[in-house]
């Protein structure tokens, strides 16, 4: 393998990993603060892709979809948190998990009822087709866009969490929600917002993945499993872990797909097995979130 081919595979892996990062990030954010494992996360990702396809068909602009979809899906997520998940806080970790699983089934079947089971077409946006010369190799413009958007979003999220007072409350809430509540913060509103942010990012990931991976009702199922693998590898509740592990899984997938195509689907599970044997908590996992 020549060096430029190596770089091409590496960047392809990063683009794929970006999707994993976005999905796992929302999952990890929600778990870190609410201790809810959102089994409907993949279905919100699917919802994002469908919402994107509809906005695109309606307005003809990918950029409007790019702005509207995260807000729309995030709002749906907040509604679900308020109505369905909230009554379950304090009743153990299994119940929200099972509830979101049921919610996911409803979303999956609801979408295929409205939009059909075959899926809808989703073309690469007009300004992002073709390839761009990165010096050593040509790289699809859309994938580069995907990597850049993910990087910008990560920076924005980091600034929000680390540099704003709202982010401070969120971080404090993840450490000890009871104390935060005693200090006079309305914690349930924080939870609502964080759930919305996590779901909104999942919706955005679905929209961004749509030109690469297609739009169909079951698209959320493999991505949920992939996000779980990323979360196990990176460590539950760790945002840094989600980013590092997401990119790692993406790159592993990309290289395996190049050398042993039939092993590509399995590669991430093998990676997960290795990580589990070496450090059961994941690469960046905290103690105490397991039980």
């Amino acid at each position, binding site marked *: 393998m020549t060096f430029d081919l190596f770089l091409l595979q590496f960047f392809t892996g990063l683009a794929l990993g970006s999707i994993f990062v976005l999905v796992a990030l929302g999952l990890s954010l929600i778990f870190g603060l609410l201790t809810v494992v959102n089994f409907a996360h993949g279905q919100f990702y699917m919802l994002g892709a469908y919402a994107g396809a509809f906005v695109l068909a309606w307005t003809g602009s990918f950029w409007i979809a790019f702005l509207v979809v995260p807000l729309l899906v995030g709002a749906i997520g907040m509604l679900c948190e308020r109505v369905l998940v909230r009554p379950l806080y304090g009743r153990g970790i299994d119940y929200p998990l*099972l*509830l979101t699983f*049921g919610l996911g089934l409803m979303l999956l*079947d*609801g979408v295929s009822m409205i939009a059909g089971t075959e899926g809808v077409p989703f073309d690469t946006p007009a300004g992002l087709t073709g390839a761009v010369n990165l010096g050593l190799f040509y790289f699809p413009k859309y994938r580069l866009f995907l990597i850049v958007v993910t990087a910008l979003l990560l920076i924005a999220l980091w600034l929000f969490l680390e540099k704003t007072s709202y982010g401070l409350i969120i971080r404090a809430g993840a450490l000890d929600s009871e104390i935060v509540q005693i200090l006079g913060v309305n914690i349930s509103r924080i939870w609502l917002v964080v759930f919305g942010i996590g779901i909104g990012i999942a919706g955005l990931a679905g929209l961004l993945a749509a030109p690469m991976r297609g739009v169909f009702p079951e698209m959320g199922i493999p991505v949920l499993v992939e996000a779980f693998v990323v979360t196990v590898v990176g460590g539950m509740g760790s945002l840094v872990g989600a980013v590092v592990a997401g990119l790692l899984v993406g790159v592993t997938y990309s290289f395996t797909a190049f050398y042993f195509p039939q092993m590509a689907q399995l590669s991430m599970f093998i990676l997960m097995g290795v990580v589990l044997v070496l450090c059961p908590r994941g690469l960046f996992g905290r103690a105490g979130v*397991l039980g």
Partner: protein
Amino acid sequence: MNSPVDPARLSISVPAAAPVRTRLKGLVEISTEHRVVLALAFLVIFPWFAPYEALAVNILVFGLFAVGYNLIYGYTGMLSFGHAALFGLGAYGAGIPIAKFGWHVLPALGLGILVAGAGAAMIGWFATRTRGIYFAMVTLAAAQVVYYIAFQWVAMTGGEDGLRGVNVGVVNLLGLHLNLLDPRTKYYAILLVVGLALWAFSRILQSPFGAVLEAVRENERRAAACGYNVRRVRLLAFTLSGLFSGLAGALYGIHLSVVPIETLHYFTSATVLMMTLLGGMGTFFGPFVGAFTYLLLADVVTVITVHWQLFVGGLFVFLILFFPRGIWGSLMHWAER
């Protein structure tokens, strides 16, 4: 569940109500003591009022699967999202020797159980390194691995089309010729196997090991302090659960005479979890009640609409929000109060 009590009635009829309660408690005790006999008595007369035999066999098979699942979720408190792999390994493990090598049904059943048990031991070895939520994720991921392997190994498993030709027909059992093409004979043959499995399951629950399982569920640290190797207990429970699930899967393949790839799909894991929840986890009869209710409901709903997942999902949400003990669990709770 809190049943509303009329205070006026309560003040007058306390002495009269007490014997009723005692009698109910007695009934519960008797039903616990003779649980295997009771379950079998019901299942023996069941085909006479089931809509059709195939559904009755489905209820048997999924009832057994849910019983096996309950061992891990209800009794040991580990939420597994990968039991489809164990069910499917049993189905393929018994189906492939029958379809490809013309084995007799009994050794094939045995092989199916063994394959599922070995698979459970392997998955469990990884998964029991983790706890709680991680356990659910790791088992789900492991089940996907099995799914992909079966999907791609077309020569053995038939891939996407499923494994065809798991035909049993007439079985020679110690000189007794059983025609498994006759639905009722098939039901009773499968019932015999399920009955034996239920008896074994009941023995496991009664054994000291069964008590250790519940101890691990209730207080892991204390169980560890009592000298139990918690991880090994969990691994053993998962493997045992795999044996029961694998037997259910093997019977399922023989019942359908094909093994659809969907047996390995993660929806199968969800279905068995759903049945266990619906009936009441951690109770002996609950999983059967759940499988029975679920399959009857699904049977009715699929006649009305193809969008039965919407219905199943809604039922899931409803159960979790309002009815977390399940049908049998709520009944038991009410009777024991």
